[in-house]
């Protein structure tokens, strides 16, 4: 039961982006298209599962005073290993996901979940938490990326939606950095209203 709860809370109730406001760097950087959002989401979820697993496994060995440096070493090592192995054995996948891999190291969702969940919960729950958070992160990125790609390029997942007339004069700011902040603030505002309504009724 608690496994299911640990899994589902990442998707809405504790959504890493919309509720916890974690991992903004990669979130703002790669949400220019839905394809990138899915790629980054898949790569981050994979690393999140592995780092939560390792941190949870060693949670009784690592002294709490030096836990943060240990987590950083574990995450950075893991990401670099994934990068090297992928580059050697899956060059095609590396070509399309390669740019996201260095970004994962600075994704504070991964450190945040290691610190906030995995270091005091059993291995299975930590993995459930990682999968839920990963899906929540991916969904959040797809939401923002959908708006940005649609407005800024007239396409969704590379399918032409708004027609070539729109594509000649798109709302380019949506793809540029300011557009990310403007759209993100609208989405965060929407979720805050949603929460307030919910709180008012209870």
């Amino acid at each position: 039961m608690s496994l299911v709860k640990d899994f589902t809370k990442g998707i809405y109730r504790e959504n890493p982006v919309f509720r916890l406001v974690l991992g903004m760097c990669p979130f703002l950087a790669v949400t220019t298209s839905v394809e990138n959002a899915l790629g980054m989401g898949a790569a981050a979820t994979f690393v999140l599962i592995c780092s939560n697993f390792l941190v949870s496994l060693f949670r009784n060995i690592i002294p709490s005073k030096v836990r943060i440096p240990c987590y950083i070493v574990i995450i950075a090592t893991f990401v670099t290993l994934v990068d090297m192995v992928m580059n050697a054995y899956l060059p095609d996948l590396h070509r399309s996901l390669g740019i996201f891999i260095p970004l994962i190291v600075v994704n504070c969702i991964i450190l945040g979940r290691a610190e906030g969940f995995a270091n005091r919960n059993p291995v299975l729950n930590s993995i459930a938490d990682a999968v839920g958070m990963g899906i929540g992160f991916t969904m959040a990125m797809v939401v923002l990326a959908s708006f940005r790609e649609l407005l800024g390029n007239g396409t969704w997942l590379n399918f032409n939606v708004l027609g070539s007339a729109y594509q000649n004069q798109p709302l380019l700011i949506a793809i540029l950095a300011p557009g990310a902040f403007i759209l993100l603030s609208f989405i965060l505002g929407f979720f805050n209203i949603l929460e307030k309504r919910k709180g008012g009724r209870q």
Partner: protein
Amino acid sequence: MAEMLKIGLILMLVALVAAVALGFVNSRTAPIIAIQKELAKQSAMNSVAESLSPGDSLAFDSLSIAGLENPYASCDNTLSIVKISVPPDTTRIGYVFIAFGKGYSSTVQTMVAVELEGSISNTTILFQQETPGLGANIVNPSKLIEKFIGLTASECLLTKDGGGIDAMTGCTITSRTVTNSIRNGLEAMNETGLFSSGDTGENPSDDVLEPAAEGGTE
């Protein structure tokens, strides 16, 4: 004191395990990565040079050219030119070189196939790590690089810089980098007298060139 020592030792142990794991995997994967890179380079070379002589299998020989100035010194790269021929005939049909330029967030590498008289036959992006969704669109040929086909060195200039090539919208830096790096390479080649003037159709004399090493064929 004893506790501090214990904590320090554990931290050292974690770092040690991480370092050993990284070193081990790196020693295993580095040669494979190098091979993959070389393969990618070879296949890019074949795909850009194909336009010079469609349907033929091509031979590539690296050339060392006396007096060739390296326009990419700022990117820690040298200009190396590869001669293309159709075996068994060893007559040159064109050249391939890699243009390097510092873009928005990476050094963009563009592979360029050049006709004997100095116009661009085809280009492809070999490496880039520009912003996803913006500069990274440079890999899509219709965005910019297919506009280079048929141009000579002096025509490789963005509209913003007084030329005739429209930059990708929102990505002037990446577009300018690629355009200028190709122009620099072509100009350096032109200065050594590598290109025949278009109207005579004659090949430049072969004594300017010395084959440096046997490159991989095909």
